[in-house]
């Protein structure tokens, strides 16, 4: 017979067993097996051989990969744009006007819908005879006729625009929660001291939002480097690799060229870059960056 203590141990282990088994297969094993894979030429054809650092050497002399890496880093410019716009939106809907809840909910709709649906809609709007060109032409900004997604100069930026649009609602909600957690006395006090609305926002609200800005920026930096869906659906990385990013390039190498070893190696390079940013996040998080009265 098991005693009470051992019975409790057994109960604990039994409960964790299914989850641990699944994690062993799909989380721990891929991390352990993924690393050696990067040193092989594993693919569907030919014999698998250990090739040392050849995949990494190849990556850093592969102009397509370097361009994708450059684009992925360039993609980070969506981060400040998202932060500024979503903070503005949060301030805008942080009021007690009638119907403000409706607006909050409608800003969140792009977040919940699939990127496939969103990207299809935007792809159609970016057509040469599409609605974007019509609006810009009517407003006198361009003379129309830009094939946004087919033009190497604009494709990447058009896709970035969609990323910004899709993410705004998400970050707005976090900032809204942040705004609502700021004690209203601080803003009242500033008003009594004679500050106007803009001054309160500039000198009281924004500084108190700073920890949220840090958190949101790093979350969006990580997803910017990992961007996949919108690029894959709207341009597939084209035209002529102009909008190629590392996520799509890894996918192409793995599942179109079946060049698994090489794809794993470039995946690892990108993961290490993302990890660098996570370390920064954790470091700032520990420093009290997330404790907004500290």
């Amino acid at each position: 017979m098991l005693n009470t203590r051992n019975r409790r141990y057994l109960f604990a282990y039994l409960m964790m067993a299914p989850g641990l088994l699944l994690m062993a297969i799909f989380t721990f094993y891929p991390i352990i097996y993924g690393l050696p894979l990067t040193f092989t030429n594993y693919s569907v054809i030919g014999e698998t051989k250990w090739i040392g650092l050849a995949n990494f050497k190849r990556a850093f002399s592969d102009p397509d990969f370097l361009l994708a890496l450059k684009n992925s880093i360039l993609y980070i410019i969506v981060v400040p744009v998202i932060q500024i716009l979503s903070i503005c939106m949060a301030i805008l809907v942080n009021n007690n006007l009638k119907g403000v809840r409706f607006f909050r909910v409608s800003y969140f709709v792009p977040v919940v819908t699939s990127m496939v649906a969103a990207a299809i809609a935007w792809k159609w709007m970016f057509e040469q005879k599409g609605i974007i060109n019509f609006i810009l032409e009517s407003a006198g900004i361009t003379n129309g006729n830009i094939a946004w997604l087919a033009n190497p100069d604009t494709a990447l930026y058009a896709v970035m625009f969609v990323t910004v649009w899709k993410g705004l609602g998400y970050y707005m909600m976090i900032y809204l929660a942040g705004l609502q957690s700021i004690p209203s006395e601080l803003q009242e006090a500033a008003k009594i001291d004679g500050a106007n609305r803009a001054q309160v926002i500039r000198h009281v609200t924004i500084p108190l939002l700073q920890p949220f800005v840090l958190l949101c920026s790093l979350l969006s930096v990580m997803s910017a480097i990992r961007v996949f869906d919108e690029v894959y659906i709207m341009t597939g990385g084209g035209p002529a690799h102009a909008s190629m990013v590392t996520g799509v390039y890894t996918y192409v190498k793995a599942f179109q060229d079946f060049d698994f070893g090489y794809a794993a190696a470039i995946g690892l390079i990108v993961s290490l870059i993302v990890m660098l940013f996570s370390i920064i996040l954790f470091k700032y998080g520990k420093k009290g960056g997330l404790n907004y009265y500290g």
Partner: protein
Amino acid sequence: MVNRVAGAAVLYTLMILTALFCLGPFLWLLSTSLKVNANIYQFPPQFIPWPITFKNFIDVFNIMPLWTNIWNTVLMTAMGVGLNLLTCTIMAYPLARFRFPGRNLIFYAIISTMILPNGAGMIVHFLIIQKMGLYNTLLGIVLPSAVTVFNVFLLRQAFITIPQEMEDAARIDGASEFRIFWNIMVPMIRPAIATIVIFDFMAFWNSFIWPIVVLDDPNKYPLTAALQYLQGELSYNFPYIAAGTVISVIPIIIVFLLLQKQFINGMVGAVKG
């Protein structure tokens, strides 16, 4: 007084413009899907469709197996959410409330995977799924994300906050370990459970590239993958693509509108927690 009215007018204008920006693409898609063929490629574009036709919706049901795709999506999502709920809850509970040898080791091993790089993730998953004979199956789509570290972490935090007295009282009354877990603990962490259901629902419903990798047969595709496939097949016929896309976003928008409060609380709570 005049000042306040003017202020409100400015705020409403800005809020409406932002709403148009956020919802515009979907409204434009809806408008396109209701147009007769002659008006679709018209320039300048016709904003409000006239005459209105539902032909595109009927046709798209005939050219693609939409009901099958919807059913596949429902199955995939139900299975994914159900498995996550089950495995993550029973895994988080002992980690939160029990002392047993190896607890900290297991916990840190789990947490550290959130930071460790896994560049070959999808590739290794694909190789495993193939070896397990799950290629081209629903289980193959769902299994790799049936346990999520994030969920385990979130649920563990929720279990930790339950006061010890609850557990002690039940133990004195002679409740079994399983009864304590199921009848006392699980009902107390309902908000955390709601959060992960919503998160996973959204993730599985909208998942797109992994189903394409695992599935060989387009008849098994969920909605998102089927739309991408349709786009490739029918790039010349946008009204059908628009109608298909509108159909695909309706369910998730309905679910969102019904649960919007929990959605938003869950989103914010998870990021702050």
